[in-house]
């Protein structure tokens, strides 16, 4: 008996897993060479076997992404941290070590029908109609962030604006104390940009632990002393006859915070940096804001794709687009490369504020479409408009701008300092404003689901 007969799989797999590439998405090359890679991979290897991280399928072409990722019947997002089902590894490639996985990433690491039950609970807090009710709160938060710096003529658009607004708003929507945003903010970003081998990781893990403990305390408190918000909805949810325990609630909270903070920050920082570098386009956006607001937002989403891709696991043997996939094989879906496909986007490497037919997939495709997409768009537009209105001549300092070293998880920025002609304060700063908003959120029960309260109410 030859070796091939004893174990024929490798030869068969080798033949099937073609073409082969060797691209480390967590190296700096994926960021620095992204333009070349996003020209090359979708054109020449739209579905390829990437030999890094134990080997996985990497799909980068727009058509192939569309054809494969919507096949929820043969794909799993499950992160089976306790080996209760098929032992799949969730949406990260490589996945974190098992001993570090405390909870899975909410609905993004679940499959239907469980995923759908939870999603139905959370949708009425995050739908376009639900989010529209928060517009006065977003306006007030942006005003306060800008007021803290307007008189000085200097601001860091990441630290002083784009980190704060999504964080405070998320606290409010969850039903957590607004002032707790500081507990959640830094670890949510630092976890993404800190390399596991960096000495900083010890402090980041400590901050992460504090964040997790604070969330668990708050969930326990909300059980005994209910307040409206997503957490209240999750606590009271009927998930097919089962009531989520604290860890299951924490799993969704972790996703909403992890998914909501760093992505929106990344998009806002990149857009502001580009507008600083393209003053003629900035003038045009200001002049034609009503006309361009939506198309410009979708274009920044396409071009900067905050989450460049997500992992899946094949849950069955299947053939799609002429490739044979086997149950258990990992797949990574490249939203960012798909968003540069010249077949779908004319001049894909150019930002066109009035782009039409912008069929980008920055919020994903299929049943796992980003549940926070409406919040992201609204907070982004509010922050952008605030900066353009009140700091119209801002200039970002390229020497002080810090991009993430790698973009394997999020295409983000750590800092984006800018200078501008000082202006007048309009009201109190962030600390006082957050305290005032807390009273309004409580008194007016702003965090109720849209099914309970449809109308926006003005803040006082």
């Amino acid at each position, binding site marked *: 008996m030859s070796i091939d007969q004893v174990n024929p799989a490798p030869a068969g797999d080798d033949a099937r897993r073609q073409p082969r590439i060797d691209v480390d998405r967590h190296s700096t090359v994926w960021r620095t060479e992204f333009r070349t890679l996003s020209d090359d991979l979708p054109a020449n290897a739209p579905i390829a076997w990437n030999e890094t991280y134990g080997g996985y399928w990497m799909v980068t072409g727009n058509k192939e992404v569309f054809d494969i990722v919507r096949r929820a019947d043969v794909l799993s997002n499950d992160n089976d941290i306790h080996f209760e089902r098929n032992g799949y590894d969730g949406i990260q490639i490589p996945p974190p070590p098992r001993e570090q996985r405390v909870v899975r990433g909410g609905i993004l690491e679940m499959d239907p029908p469980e995923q759908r039950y939870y999603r139905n609970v959370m*949708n009425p807090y995050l739908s376009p109609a639900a989010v529209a009710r928060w517009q006065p709160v977003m306006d007030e938060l942006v005003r306060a962030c800008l007021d803290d710096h307007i008189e000085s003529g200097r601001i860091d658009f990441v630290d002083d604006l784009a980190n704060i607004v999504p964080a405070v708003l998320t606290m409010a929507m969850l039903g957590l104390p607004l002032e707790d945003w500081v507990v959640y903010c830094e670890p949510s970003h630092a976890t993404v940009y800190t390399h596991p081998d960096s000495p900083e990781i010890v402090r980041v893990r400590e901050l992460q632990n504090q964040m997790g403990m604070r969330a668990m305390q708050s969930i326990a408190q909300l059980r005994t002393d209910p307040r409206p918000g997503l957490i209240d909805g999750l606590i009271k949810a009927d998930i097919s006859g089962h009531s989520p325990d604290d860890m299951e609630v924490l799993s969704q909270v972790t996703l909403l915070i992890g998914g909501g903070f760093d992505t929106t920050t990344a998009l806002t920082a990149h857009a502001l940096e580009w507008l600083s570098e393209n003053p003629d386009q900035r003038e045009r956006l200001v002049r034609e804001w009503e006309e361009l607001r939506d198309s410009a937002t979708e274009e920044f989403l396409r071009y900067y794709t905050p989450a460049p891709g997500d992992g899946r696991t094949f849950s069955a043997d299947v053939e799609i687009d002429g490739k044979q996939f086997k149950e258990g094989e990992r797949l990574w879906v490249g939203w960012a490369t798909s968003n540069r496909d010249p077949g779908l986007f004319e001049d894909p490497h150019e930002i066109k504020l009035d782009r*039409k*037919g912008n*069929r980008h997939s920055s919020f994903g495709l*299929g049943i796992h479409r980003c549940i926070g997409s409406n919040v992201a768009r609204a907070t982004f537009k509010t922050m952008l408009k605030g900066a353009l209105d009140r700091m119209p001549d801002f200039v970002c300092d390229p020497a002080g701008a810090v991009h993430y070293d790698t973009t394997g998880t999020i295409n983000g920025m750590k800092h984006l300092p800018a200078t501008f002609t000082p202006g007048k304060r309009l009201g109190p700063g962030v600390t006082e404003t957050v305290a005032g908003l807390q009273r309004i959120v409580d008194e007016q029960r702003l965090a109720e689901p849209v099914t309970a309260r449809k109308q926006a109410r003005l803040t006082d």
Partner: protein
Amino acid sequence: MKVSVDSNVCQGHTLCAMTAPDLFVLSDEDGHASAVGGDVPPNREAAAREAARTCPEQAVVLS
């Protein structure tokens, strides 16, 4: 021209309503789209085509 949304395919991206707010309505509860209904006015056919082209899930059906 008639326009409709395949509710089995729509995932609530909302781009159709952003492109043609007079032709599509979004559910309050989950943001999934449906067509307002009836014939598309001739002067809105281009907008309907644009909405169909923009839909990430290709859920907008023209007939």
